[in-house]
């Protein structure tokens, strides 16, 4: 069943269209910035955008920050919301269950497909935006920021984490958000960390949408329901009066992956982010399972 779901995922034009559109946004932004040389000043606009003019290799991080607030969650919510409800409304759900595909197995296969989609999307954004960053915004101009390639500057970085290894890496280093340099290897590690964090954050969205997808036969309803949860969470995150519930909101730590690009990595929010998403994933998957396993399939 898992193989069947993956086959359906890759054989659908919509999958690739969606991923193409997600990748297109950072490309468009990069072209505008490269042409006008007008990046938002530090501390304003989307994260990392101020830095990319100096450092094209940081563009994957900027691109992830661009697609994270809307594009990625919308795509994931639509995919996950459609997963069970779409099969129900098209009638194929009853044939799958009568085939028979166990209900738990079906849910697991759907989850695997949605996870795969999320990972492909995140990887596609990272890879295409790295190419965009290097080709359009230009390679590292670290020297211009006053950091010598490799060598001494790495060892005077605050903290202890990656500093000694930095000195061993040849080639240009990249400036972290804290101002200390990152080697290329470190950059790759940090980007991988950010990708993992964002994927897990999206799985939280997927779990909510999947749960709603087992409640209704309307794919659109399930997707919009999950997005409504995110919008509500975003509103509460910025509301001072809601401080009491903020640590438990699904989007509270969404941007914590930015801390991967500090030197050293600032782990506290990253860990909390992973933890809160894990809770959302477990709770909503359990709810989806409990609902779907005992549900009358009348569609």
């Amino acid at each position: 069943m898992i193989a069947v779901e993956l086959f359906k995922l890759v054989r659908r034009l919509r999958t690739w269209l969606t991923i193409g559109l997600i990748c297109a946004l950072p490309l468009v932004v990069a072209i505008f910035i490269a042409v006008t040389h007008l990046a938002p000043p530090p501390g304003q606009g989307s994260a990392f955008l101020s830095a990319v003019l100096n450092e094209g290799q940081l563009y994957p991080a900027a691109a992830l920050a661009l697609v994270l607030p809307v594009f990625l969650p919308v795509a994931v919510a639509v995919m996950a919301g459609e997963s069970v409800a779409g099969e129900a409304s098209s009638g194929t759900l009853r044939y799958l269950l009568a085939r028979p595909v166990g209900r738990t197995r079906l849910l697991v296969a759907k989850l695997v497909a949605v996870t795969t989609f999320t990972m492909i999307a995140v990887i596609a954004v990272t890879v295409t935006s790295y190419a965009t960053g290097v080709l359009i915004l230009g390679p590292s101009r670290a020297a211009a920021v006053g950091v010598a390639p490799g060598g001494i500057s790495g060892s005077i970085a605050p903290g202890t984490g990656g500093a000694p290894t930095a000195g061993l890496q040849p080639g240009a280093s990249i400036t972290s958000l804290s101002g200390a340099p990152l080697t290329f290897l470190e950059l790759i590690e940090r980007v991988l960390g950010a990708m993992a964090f964002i994927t897990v954050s999206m799985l939280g969205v997927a779990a909510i949408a999947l749960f709603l997808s087992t409640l209704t036969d309307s794919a659109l309803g399930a997707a919009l329901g999950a997005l409504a949860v995110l919008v509500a969470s975003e509103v509460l995150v910025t509301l001072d009066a809601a401080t009491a519930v903020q640590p438990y909101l699904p989007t509270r730590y969404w941007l914590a992956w930015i801390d991967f690009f500090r030197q050293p990595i600032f782990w506290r929010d990253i860990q909390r982010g992973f933890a809160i998403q894990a809770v959302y994933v477990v709770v909503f998957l359990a709810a989806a399972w409990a609902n779907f396993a005992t549900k009358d399939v009348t569609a």
Partner: protein
Amino acid sequence: MITTQNLTKRFGRVEAVREVSIDVRAGDRYGLLGPNGSGKSTLVRMLLGLVYATSGSISVLGEPVPRHVGRVLPQIGALIEEPAAYPHLSGRANLRLLDAAGPHGSRRTRRRRVDEALEQVGLAGIDRRPVRAYSLGMRQRLGLAAALVRRPRLLILDEPTNGLDPRGIKDIRDLLTGLNAAGVTIFLSSHLLPEVSALCTRVGVLDSGRLVLEDQLSNLEQPTGRVLVSTGDPEGAVAALDGLVERRDGTDLVVRSSDPAALNARLVAAGVPVLSLAVQRRSLEDIVLDVTGAGSDQFGLNRAAP
């Protein structure tokens, strides 16, 4: 093959199926009849483990359902209301995908089984066009093919000839009769009486969720004790039969008699030319209309409260 005992399903306050006990035996061609909304589809879905009964028990192929539905379903081919398929894939790809999704679909034999099923339903020459472009009849045939891919022992078909033209209906009837002769038990639900009457050996009738009748079709279609006579000399026939004629409609007469041979001899002796003579039987339509009330899609003023 299929037995249910006091099967009841309530959706909220609506009782879709009430205390139904059906008995489908091995080798039957069983037709489940009933007006729209009489609970046929709900019953079919309960047999397949899609809908859970409120009370009562189900046994299919000797196994309790839904508890061991996973053991039962691989031996069943099902058409559940309308056929459904992924519209962007071809019919063949759809059948292969569904076969690959569950157990007992050997990969080695898949291509052959799918091609055979398509041939059985008359889609052997189907090309790679997506199901989106199929006509209603083609979709229905594809749905039947999907039910046949794993050579089931039992077919559970909800309205199998929906959307087919007269030729298609005959094709499917011949196919099902042939499969039945080869040992496949067939359970179908329908509201098309002529179809059931032409195909089935046994019928059950649902009305407002209750099983109001279940019997062999041959028992139900008993002679009514009347003979239909068509003659070139109706006046002569009426005179010769003296009071036995119940109704006259032009040259057609309804005659009270349980012995058509004697009746024929009497008419011939009186010099009345007999064009045709047939024993009147109760039609399935009469039987079903007798035992059922209005369908759920009908809201007359005198409709009894449920």
